[in-house]
């Protein structure tokens, strides 16, 4: 089953697109690439002002009481504009985990601030190249965290982090404030994402959930974040498809628009198929939030969106020829973002395996 956006959702889509079109500037985004540790404050204040930070949190905690569908719609607009501070996704993931953990004091302390955009959160699951290692190396004991988390998005500027760790031999989720934590900025090919290597060294933290419940919650939260990211990837892929189309219609070579050459024309038509399949999977996955088939739906959305964005980046740059690879041309903003988003929330290998486990398990 899938859904058709209702009028309110369509309004969110056009409004978020309109505002980002007006406020995002390629020059500002290009400058960010060369400044480790900076992020797009214009975007973030826009997100706060527009209530996007509150979108998917319950009303009783300062949210707007909407869900993954609406957050996805905004993320799609963000992706199209290569806008976006990484908090958009990680705040949602962290907030969801806090809510699900049922720890009322923490929820009361952080949810309203996350919803208002006053506070920001990171989600530190991955270790090495594993998006969600079954036995994390990071350890929680006696109210303190110890261990390292590499390349955590948002972490360079976030107030708190939800940390995937080991507690009494079982996986667990813990909440740590990052104020005193060692954060080594990561020079990245997509610097606006605020990547940091986190080093916990007896950091005070609160246990949120442990054992099988923690595994399930972490997987569910990762899938939710993956669906948000998939929408962002979809937005980027679609934007690239239109950029390629417009360029192919205007740029001329050998006496005709290059879009009349089938090598160009068919490549853009292929992008259309990838974009529409990704879109259908994204909308479907967002609508399955909380249902038993959510993990499969999220994996399908994630895989098709990653393929669409990576392919669109490769092909749109190629169609542009020389101008596609200049700094000022700015297409590399999408090319970089395609790759950074392909890694955040776990690479394609991870999601392929997770999906097959779901399918082959279910059919067993």
């Amino acid at each position, binding site marked *: 089953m899938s859904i058709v956006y209702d009028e309110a959702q369509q309004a969110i889509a056009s409004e978020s697109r309109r505002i980002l079109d007006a406020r995002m500037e390629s020059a500002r985004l290009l400058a960010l690439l060369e400044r480790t540790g900076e992020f797009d404050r214009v975007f973030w204040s826009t997100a706060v002002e527009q209530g996007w930070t509150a979108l998917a949190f319950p009303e009783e905690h300062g949210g707007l009481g909407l869900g993954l569908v609406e957050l996805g719609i905004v993320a799609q607009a963000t992706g199209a504009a290569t806008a976006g501070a990484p908090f958009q996704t990680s705040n949602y993931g962290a907030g969801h985990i806090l809510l699900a953990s049922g720890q009322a004091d923490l929820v009361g302390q952080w949810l309203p601030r996350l919803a208002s955009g006053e506070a920001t959160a990171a989600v530190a699951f991955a270790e090495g190249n594993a998006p969600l290692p079954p036995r994390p190396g990071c350890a929680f004991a006696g109210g303190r965290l110890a261990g390292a988390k590499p390349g955590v998005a948002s972490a360079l500027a976030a107030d708190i982090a939800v940390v995937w760790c080991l507690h009494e031999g079982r996986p667990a989720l813990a909440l740590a404030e990052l104020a005193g934590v060692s954060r080594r900025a990561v020079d990245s090919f997509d610097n606006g994402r605020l990547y940091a290597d986190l080093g916990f060294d007896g950091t005070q933290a609160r246990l949120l959930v442990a054992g099988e419940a923690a595994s399930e919650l972490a997987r569910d939260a990762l899938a939710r974040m993956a669906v948000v990211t998939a929408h962002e990837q979809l937005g980027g892929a679609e934007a690239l498809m239109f950029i390629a189309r417009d360029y192919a219609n205007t740029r001329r070579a050998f006496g005709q628009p290059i879009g009349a050459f089938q090598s160009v024309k068919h490549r853009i038509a292929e992008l*259309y198929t990838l974009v*529409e399949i990704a879109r259908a999977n994204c909308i*479907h996955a967002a609508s399955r939030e909380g249902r038993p088939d959510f993990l499969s739906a999220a994996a399908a959305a994630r895989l098709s969106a990653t393929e669409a964005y990576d392919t669109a980046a490769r092909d749109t740059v190629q169609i542009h020829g020389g101008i596609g690879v200049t700094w000022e041309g700015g297409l590399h903003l999408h090319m970089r973002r395609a790759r950074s988003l392909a890694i955040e929330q776990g690479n394609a290998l991870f999601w392929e395996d997770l999906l097959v486990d779901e*399918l082959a398990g279910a059919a067993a």
Partner: protein
Amino acid sequence: MNDLDAYRAAARDWLRSQLPAFGREAQAGLSELDHLALGKRYQRAKFDAGYAGINWDPEFGGQGLSPLHKVIFEQEEMACGMPSGYYGVSLGISVPVVMKFAQDRAWAKERVLAALKGDEIWCQLFSEPSGGSDLAGARTKAEPDGNGWKLNGQKLWTTYAQFSDYGVILARNDPTVPKHKGLTFFWLDMHAPGVTVRPIKLAAGDNHVNEVFFDDVKLTDGQRLSPVGGGFGTAMATLMIERYSASDPAGFGPALDLFIDLARNSEVNGRPAIEDGRIRSAIARTYAMRSGLEAITTRAMRMMAAGMEPGPEGSLNKLVSVRSRQKLSELAIDLMGNVGLAWDVHASGKDDWVASWLAAPTGRIAGGADEMLLNTIAERILGLPQDHRPDKGVPFNQIPA
């Protein structure tokens, strides 16, 4: 449960009740003619049960329901593997044209009813040896002849022509004007003198397509379905009449579950195939692609149910699904290894990987070759320029052959 859900449930019940008489097991091992007879009986059963002409005018024997009801029935029918193929072109393309454009309305009503009951089958005579994709390049001649017309020439790839009683045909009435402007659309009695049908055997051994030859075949002017010279427009309209029909995300090949089963029961170099990254990747990618196609269909149906016009993305199903099925079938044969060398010529492409692989190329060509579908997406949906067309605006008889 809303009306549509109820309709689906009732359709499913009825289809299940028909399985013993018409399902896959009933079809197994039948000769060509016995299978055709079964297909005719099945169409009659649909008619009697109110599942023929679901979205057609009751005046013509239809049920007067929405296209959505039709798609719902087709989805359920497809899952049952019923022998409905003989009527795909007949009721999906040819008969609607007759219903809409035939001059003699009483005669048209008779034909439509006979077609819905399965008594008569119609084919569509479009493609020619000179070009399967280039519809407007038709060379079959319709020359004025007394009060009517005289037909000479040849059509190719005509599905089920050998079983058809009637056909609709595009023919050239004027070779001195540009190619799109000199065509006229007619209907035709396939049993008329001068019509010769020759089945073409395909690579997979089946012969559902035909060559059809016309040797001074007489047509009355009453058989004309379009203005003289206005046939191309009518032919294009034809292709759009039944734009909503059930699509198969599996590309008319085996379901993914069958591949998963194969992977579960095979090894790759001593380890379970289901644990091999290459096999897992194929499963995951195929699932993601097919679930996207399914979601596109579901979204389109919801839009139709809400009275909205579905988007053009519904058109990408065949392009994507059949091409992918071809490669998945190859991989399945690889996985079977020496065992995959065996082939039962009667196996179905819906559950046998070799049969699916052998028939896949036909699927990538029939009903719009991949390249034509990409052009359509590029030009019609995205607004990219047309290919260079040296034949554009040139009188047909001055285009180099």
